């Protein structure tokens, strides 16, 4: 492995070492700032509780992302086929996107049970990048290729399946990578709102709960798990991106 690849890990370890030294040298109490070693110990000791919450958050994030993908792509296809539909419904999608999810979450918690409300919040923030990117991709098809398909008498469905959807794939995957991170953020934001009302079981709820108990090391441990979950989602989606585009698209090709 080259030095440049190890560099981020090295920097991360140096920062953790500095943090650990600062806590010990300044004798900072754990309820103010716990040392990384204490966070690691808490993670090990509370693993049963935290891993169950991690599973809840990941399950909701994955479900929200799957729903956002299915509904976002389906709507983008409909918008591409009928522009009046796009003109009618796209503004609603924009309104949902620009309204902060933290403001929507308390309302949803009134009408829905906690888990469904969290799922709805994660879906709402993940949905827009997929819809807008896929719609952009579907409308950015090479005009000469469209002429070629017209020349050979391709039906609308053939154009969609053989030309417009493959053309839109890089755009869709770009949107999916953004949506993956946003789904997690949406789930966390909604869990915090749910946690404030005493409901929930996800990682953010554990943060709220630990905050009420001044269990700061557990707050950091839960936060570390959220970061790891975010990185894992990004890596999985980056792998999917490379697997689907690596053979043909410049964005996924390595320069020699």
């Amino acid at each position, binding site marked *: 492995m080259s030095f440049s690849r190890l560099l981020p890990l090295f920097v991360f370890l140096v920062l953790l070492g500095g943090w650990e030294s600062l806590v010990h040298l300044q004798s900072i109490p754990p309820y103010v700032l716990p040392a990384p070693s204490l966070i690691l110990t808490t993670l090990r000791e509370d693993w049963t509780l935290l891993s169950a919450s991690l599973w809840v958050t990941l399950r909701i994030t994955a479900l929200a992302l799957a729903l956002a993908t299915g509904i976002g792509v389906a709507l983008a296809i409909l918008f591409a086929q009928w522009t009046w539909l796009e003109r009618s419904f796209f503004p609603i999608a924009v309104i949902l996107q620009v309204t902060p999810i933290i403001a929507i979450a308390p309302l949803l918690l009134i009408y829905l049970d906690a888990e469904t409300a969290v799922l709805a919040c994660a879906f709402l923030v993940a949905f827009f990048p997929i819809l807008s990117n896929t719609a952009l991709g579907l409308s950015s098809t*090479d005009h000469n290729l469209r002429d*070629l398909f017209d*020349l*050979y*008498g391709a039906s609308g469905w053939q154009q969609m399946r053989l030309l417009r959807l493959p053309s839109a*794939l890089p755009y869709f995957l770009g949107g999916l990578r953004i949506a993956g991170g946003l789904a997690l953020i949406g789930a966390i934001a909604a869990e915090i709102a749910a946690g404030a009302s005493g409901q929930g079981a996800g990682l953010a709820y554990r943060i709220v709960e630990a905050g009420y108990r001044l269990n700061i090391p557990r707050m950091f441990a839960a936060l570390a798990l959220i970061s790891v979950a975010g990185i894992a989602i990004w890596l999985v989606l980056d792998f999917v991106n490379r697997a689907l585009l690596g053979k*043909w698209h410049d964005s996924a090709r390595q320069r020699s």
Partner: protein
Amino acid sequence: MTLLSLSTIGKTFANGTRALDHLDLDIARGEFVSLLGPSGCGKSTALRIIAGLERADQGKFTWGDSKPDIGFVFQDPTLMPWANVFDNVFLPLRLKGVSHAQAQPKIEEALARVGLADFAQHMPRELSGGMKMRASIARALVMQPKLLLMDEPFAALDEITRHRLNRDLLNLQAELGMTVIFVTHSVYESAFLSSRICVFAPRPGRIVETISVAEPAARTEAFRLSAPYLEACAKASRALEAAMEGA
């Protein structure tokens, strides 16, 4: 025998640009006709009207007997970057509902004709500019069209590749007996390839002169040094200059 006929064709785009005005053109079966002119003079629009990709808003466009199968080659190779060469050439047959198994021999034949038999599984990005254009020509030939429309297909290629593809194109036309309408802004290319050169004047596009090129049985590189070729070049250059001055 007339293949197609354009009579007093006019075309104005939505932005008000008058692309074609009173365009008259008859094409006989088996001809190789070049539409020669500067950029923006309506040559490509005329080609697109023949292909059915644009509609004329004046005049009359008729086919001799019936509309033949048409192959179209664009200025860019216009390959699907996500599909390999085989699947790109398969496209016209696939759109007509031909199965993969039925299409395979036709695709292999088309690729062999353009010298890409060994590159069927390659992705477009793995090909040179000339090879991409060959793949594009193979795709146009796989339907065995009676009419091949080419819109400045070799404009972006280097001189040596262009000369090689010019020779290959003439061989293909002779083998398959196609009619070819070839848009170009190169006087030399039009003189080498064509039996007839139609010189376009710009704004609005129209044919101002038609030049017949004397026919040797087979055109080789030696034709580029022959008197008929040089004479056609000189005539086409003069006509082009006159068209530009009159614009």
